[in-house]
């Protein structure tokens, strides 16, 4: 079976159109990042969080009423997937498990006939939250530096720069979409948590490897077709790798779709984020990474001719 015959699409010729589309999407994403409040999970914020499962779904106002009554007004209350599963979160902090016990006592007083079970209980100090955020930044920066060095070393320096710019594009775009989609459905939990952080770092890894594979073909073809200019070589390389690109990203997307559907609450946010990342990661290898290398080389050649 073969999905593709030999293709000959003029990818690079249309790059200006895609620059515009990328620009617009990035702009929308940036607006979301700036104007929509970012939902950090308890991992990064600190506080107390309880996930309880009632026997029958309780009315949310009553739960809210209980939280107000026990002196924790303004707590976050939402259902997670199943209407019986209620997530309670407060930023209140005290030594030990005092807050959690108070919530437990309050709930069992309010819902006498409706027993509940605590599925998860988390208490995280504010210092740990700050530390995690810092570690997340370090991790991203360290990854980018390593990728820049490695690709710069294996190819040319501009290739490394282009790959990192493509990564910025992917991360920003995905982050924007994640923030935009957060809260759309109770089945899709897209808070910025440690899990989502893992998704972002995975998409960085995936996007880089996709870019590396396109670059690898360009590097190879540049040696074979010495008389052709970069524009032609790039188009040829992208066409040659197209079949692989579609099959691999298709399989990854398939796997991620399975995770989204069957992977459970915890894996869904991860899979969704990474799915967006797969799409932008595949796209950016062509229209961000390669396109930047092309335009930079052309600009440099132009300057060289002028001098």
């Amino acid at each position, binding site marked *: 079976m073969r999905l593709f015959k030999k293709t000959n699409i003029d990818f690079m010729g249309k790059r200006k159109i895609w620059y515009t589309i990328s620009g617009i999407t990035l702009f929308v994403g940036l607006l979301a990042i700036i104007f929509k409040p970012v939902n950090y999970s308890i991992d990064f914020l600190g506080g107390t969080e309880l996930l309880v*499962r009632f026997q029958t779904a309780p009315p949310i106002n009553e739960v809210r009423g209980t939280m107000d009554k026990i002196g924790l007004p303004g707590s976050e209350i939402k259902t997670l997937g199943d209407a019986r599963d209620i997530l309670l979160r407060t930023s209140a902090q005290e030594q030990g498990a005092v807050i959690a016990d108070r919530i437990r006592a309050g709930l069992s007083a309010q819902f006498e006939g409706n027993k509940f079970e605590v599925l998860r209980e988390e208490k995280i100090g504010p210092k740990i939250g700050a530390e995690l955020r810092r570690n997340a930044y370090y991790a991203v920066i360290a*990854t980018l530096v390593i990728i820049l060095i490695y690709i710069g070393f294996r190819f040319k320096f501009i290739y490394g720069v282009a790959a990192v710019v493509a990564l910025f594009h992917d991360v920003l775009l995905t982050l924007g979409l994640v923030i935009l989609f957060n809260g759309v459905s109770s089945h899709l939990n897209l808070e910025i948590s*440690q899990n989502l952080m*893992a998704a972002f770092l995975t998409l960085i890894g995936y996007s880089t490897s996709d870019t*590396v594979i396109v670059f690898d073909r360009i590097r190879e073809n540049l040696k074979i077709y010495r008389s052709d200019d970069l524009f032609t070589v790039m188009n040829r390389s992208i066409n040659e790798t197209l079949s692989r690109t579609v099959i691999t990203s298709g399989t990854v997307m398939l*796997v991620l779709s399975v995770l989204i559907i069957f992977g459970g609450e*915890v894996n869904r946010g991860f899979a969704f984020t990474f799915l967006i990342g797969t799409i932008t990661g595949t796209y950016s290898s062509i229209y961000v990474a390669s396109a930047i290398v092309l335009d930079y080389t052309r600009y440099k050649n132009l300057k060289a001719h002028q001098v």
Partner: protein
Amino acid sequence: MKQYRGRIIIILLAIGLALYFLYPTYESYKINKHLQTLAGADSTNYILTNEKHIRDVRAKRIKLGLDLQGGMRVVLEVNVLKMLEELAKNKDDQFNSIAAEIEKEAQVSEEPVTDIFKRRFDEKGIRLSRYYGSLRESNDEIIKRLQDESEKAVDRGMEILRNRVDQYGVSEPSIQKEGARRIIVELPGVSNEQEVTTLIQGTALLEFKLMKDPDIIYKTMEAIDKYLASQGFTDTSASAKKSDTTTQTNALAALTQDSSKSVLPGDKSPEQFAKEHPFFALLRPNQKGTGEGYASENDRPRIDQILKRPDVQKLIPSDMEFLWMAKPSFVSEGSRFFALIGLEKKAELTGGVIVDARATIDPNFNQPIVTMNMNSEGSRDWARITGANVNKRMAIVLDNAVFSAPVIRGKITGGRSQIEGMENIDEARLLEIVLKAGALPAPVNIIEQRSVGPSLGEDSIHAGINSFTYALILTVLFMLMYYRTGGIVACVALFINVSFIFATLAAFGGTLTLPGIAGIVLTIGMAVDTNVLIYERIREELTTGKTLNAAISAGYSKAFSAIFDSHVTTFFSGVVLFQFGTGPVQGFALTVMMGTAANLFTGIVITRVLFNFMTTRSTSTINFG
């Protein structure tokens, strides 16, 4: 084929090794399945007869993270400021006001507390020697000493926690040090928050208790034994493992030469002995009459149960209590044996009087010793107590576990004591930590506490495993359809790859978490990519009219650089994640690193050998779709 001989040997070795590491996990799964079919007494009997095997297998199987099996995770941090405050002498108003300022700053600052401490005192131009140490010491010297002290506090806190968790009886607890000041406690299967919080946060209690007269201890044990025999107490489990009993008895007989007070079975059969002496069948008294009784760790809970019974309590003198030694006395047949000793209920002294303790090597005898200093008040009492109890044994008890019970050689005046008889310097260091635990509490704060109910654990493990299986099946189907023979080879490689990941997890004692499963799913994606890259290349080469053999080898060599570069970058981002991430992120990074490494081997080396194997047989069966 010949040029591949070396590779084939390596591949077979790797697969064999993987199977070796995976076997305990499989065996443990089988045992659990089997246990589910057994009911009540049958299952306890099964556990008892196969105890050693089950424990071995459990220790080597793949460990599941708390998110998959439910349990509690607590992160503790030593409160350095509180410790510094407690260490200070002659505290005045000025000290207290500076301490309050430091506390405020420490809450928001990332600077180590000791640094803030020094800076604040330097700013005010106050010499730290006013509160700590001697006049001659400079601020720098004192701070350095206090830093050492705060690091030791973490070790102390860990030992206190380990001691308590051991007594609490959690299976496979994990207590680890993170960084310089943090302790992570993970308790699988535990869900009682309150109990754990009090267990962890209570202040350590160090006591000195005199040991009872060995004769009285022995008589009490004997009385319990006789009483139980008269009650017709038979311990089913004790008779269920008769073969065990004999080996244990032999080990004990070897340990104890004097058999004047023989209660050992001698020519009696173990069953009969267990019937006549139900208590001594579990707890073997020391034959030299030291007043200790030994029991294997598996029998400990049963003995505790017996001792707690109200009717048995009546047989124990009201001023006496039985406590276990914290560390095993000896190991026999893979079982650890602990000593139970009888002590005065009332403590002679508590650890608050200890000023300092230090483990060193005695230069005269080249033996490890521990020296211990007491404050003036403690020294007075100590002199009186030791003077009145020469040649008796004094037990050092921390949180109800006996760490040492040295014999008092003579009256100790001046508050400086020396404890000898440790087997090695590690044992001495442990005693130092224990003695200091009473003097210098290690104030700890809970900074993170997570608990996952077992049902959520089950939910997520099912979701994870299901999605994993579906993803695998879909991928395999697609590969088979699209690449035919190539697909089969790819699937074999995929399967080996996944077993390598699990085997490495088992071999290094790694923990499988839910994000870890996500990492494996990602690896599957990358493994498929490796094959796709190679097969697309082979197809390209085939269209240029090369022979199958030539196309395969060209495909592999041309695809190599792309595969290598993409795997190396992914591997490095895994390394970075592992380095900077915590908990769940590390679990993810771990499987990604293992997966990419295994992938290079399976995707490039193993599949190549498989193709070579097939081409030497016949070329007509190979089809790349």
